[in-house]
């Protein structure tokens, strides 16, 4: 046997020092790559999102939602790739704009509920006492409000009903879950010695919240917001399906599915509702898959990668 020359040894030592512990982003990425289903889901989400947002730039919404009496309920053809609905409107165009609208709403709602929920959760969890008591009673108050009924009443009252007003009303009723989650974690976190240690150094409360508490909650925040995103897509579609979503000139995945309430459409014109329904199903599943992978990455005991 020929032994490696001794001048290899310092090199090996250097490598040992270079092997830093993986950053949290590396861990996330490793977990997703190791979980093939999550990887495929992520690729799918990225492709759909990119495609929808880019093509909707060139599509003309006005023209797509214009009623065309000469092309009612047409089956898929070269002119209308996915056929038309009972107003002669192109399903493919509606699908793209609808997906964009649904995704935008879900994304905005997730971000807004995240910002509100995290702020309130972290403040009440970190400070505790009276502040905690106050915010948690506010949360309780919002939780007992009948969400659906208020949304329905809201739709009846607001004259010009847009993506943004819809987002706001959804946000107003969906921030409590994440606020409670973050509060419970912040309660745990503030008892740890390094928070106290940071206080002994003279760091202010705000400094501790931003520098120590939030970074240590980041994995939970990422996971719960991802799972919320999937839930919010479903919620928007559900409301639209029930007829409390958007008017027909604002296509969304839910409005497309709601055409299936017509028995004839449901039975003999699957091209109208099937693409949207399957897209909702696959999108929600994909986001959930990615969310699950993120969840595992956040908990070292469950990691695969």
């Amino acid at each position, binding site marked *: 046997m020929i032994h490696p020359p001794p001048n290899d040894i310092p090199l090996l030592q250097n490598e040992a020092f270079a092997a830093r512990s993986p950053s949290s982003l590396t861990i996330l990425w490793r977990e997703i790559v190791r979980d093939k289903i999550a990887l495929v889901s992520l690729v799918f989400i990225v492709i759909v999102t990119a495609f929808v947002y880019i093509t909707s730039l060139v599509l003309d919404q006005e023209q797509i939602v214009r009623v065309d009496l000469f092309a009612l309920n047409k089956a898929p053809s070269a002119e209308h790739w996915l056929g038309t609905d009972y107003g002669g409107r192109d399903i493919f165009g509606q699908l793209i704009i609808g997906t964009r609208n649904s995704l935008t709403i879900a994304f905005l709602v997730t971000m807004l509920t995240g910002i509100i929920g995290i702020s309130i959760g972290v403040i009440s969890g970190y400070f505790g006492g009276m502040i905690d008591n106050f915010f948690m009673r506010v949360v309780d108050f919002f939780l007992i409000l009948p969400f659906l009924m208020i949304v329905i009443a809201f739709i009846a009252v607001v004259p010009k009903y847009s993506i943004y007003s819809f987002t706001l009303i959804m946000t107003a009723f969906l921030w409590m879950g994440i606020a409670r989650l973050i509060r419970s974690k912040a309660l745990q976190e503030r008892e740890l010695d390094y928070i106290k240690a940071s206080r002994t150094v*003279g760091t202010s409360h705000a400094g501790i919240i931003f520098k120590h508490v939030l970074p240590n909650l980041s994995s939970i925040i990422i996971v719960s917001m991802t799972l919320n995103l999937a839930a919010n897509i479903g919620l928007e579609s559900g409301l639209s399906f029930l007829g409390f979503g958007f008017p027909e000139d604002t296509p969304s995945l839910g409005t497309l599915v709601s055409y299936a309430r017509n028995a004839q459409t449901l039975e003999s014109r699957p091209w109208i509702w099937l693409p949207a329904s399957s897209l909702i199903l696959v999108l929600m599943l994909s986001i959930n898959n990615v969310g699950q992978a993120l969840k595992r990455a956040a908990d070292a005991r469950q990691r695969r990668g």
Partner: protein
Amino acid sequence: MQNELLTIQHLTTSFKIEDHYYAAVDEVSLSVKPNEVVAIVGESGSGKSALAFSIMGLHARAKSEGSIAFEGYNLNSLGPNELNKLRGKHIGMIFQDPLSALNPLMTVGDQIQEALILHQPNMSKKERKRKVIELLNSVGILQPDVIASSYPHELSGGMRQRIVISIAIANEPKLLIADEPTTALDATIQLQILDLIRKLKDDIGAGIILITHDIGVVAEMADRVAVMYGGQIVEIADIHTLLSDPRHPYTRSLLRSIPSADTPKTKLYSIQGVVPSLKHLPRQGCRFRFRIPWIGESSHEENPQMHELSPGHFVRCTCYQNFWFPGEEDIQNGAS
């Protein structure tokens, strides 16, 4: 007589349990001089850490009365902003468990810098980096540039405690509070850390409050010792007096409970019972009397006061006069 660095007078810190306030630190008076190590010993639950946290103003939702004079300020009446200016700059604190005292998501270099950024804001980035390396060097860490960019979990217990110490001394505090700094470490590392704390004390001339339940550490480090029981100081003396002539039954019991290498395999003395919880602590009379039930009630004072036996040596309650350990009855009877 040197000027006192820290003078605590009648400090009482109470916590609210079920709508009642219970004092965890009860009428404690204590002073620390520059370059002096004052040890506070006692069992778990005797109020040592509560006292340390009171000095730092770290208790949330606790009622704190009395005065803590430090550098012309009364720490007990300062607002949070003024307190933040003092903490970390003039008072540093070393924690018991070095793993939980460090943020797992920040490199140790960044954590040391946090103290520098807060209290020396005009320091340039480069100077700060150099200061971090310098601090790591001073706490005896090899390859400080490599260690500065590593995370707490990558370091050993002893190294983590060195990091915690380097954070505490980053701004050369005048007062250092060490809350059981060696409890989580093994014996060889303990000695290194104690040596380090002593060396740093000599370098920066800080007064140190050393909280521990390890009498060995006390003997090694302290100039003066305060023994705490039930939130009160029951005996305070300089180290030689306390070790050679302990008076209070609690001090004597503690010293008797130390395993000794000279008499192996003999049954170790243990104090009867446990430290009562905050809620059930007797507030009337001698707080230690229930753990030495063989001593008659008449030996105790109704309202235990501190008695000065010799200059600087104070003992609470009169029960020390008639105290004897079980098994020493013969001697006691023979003597009387």
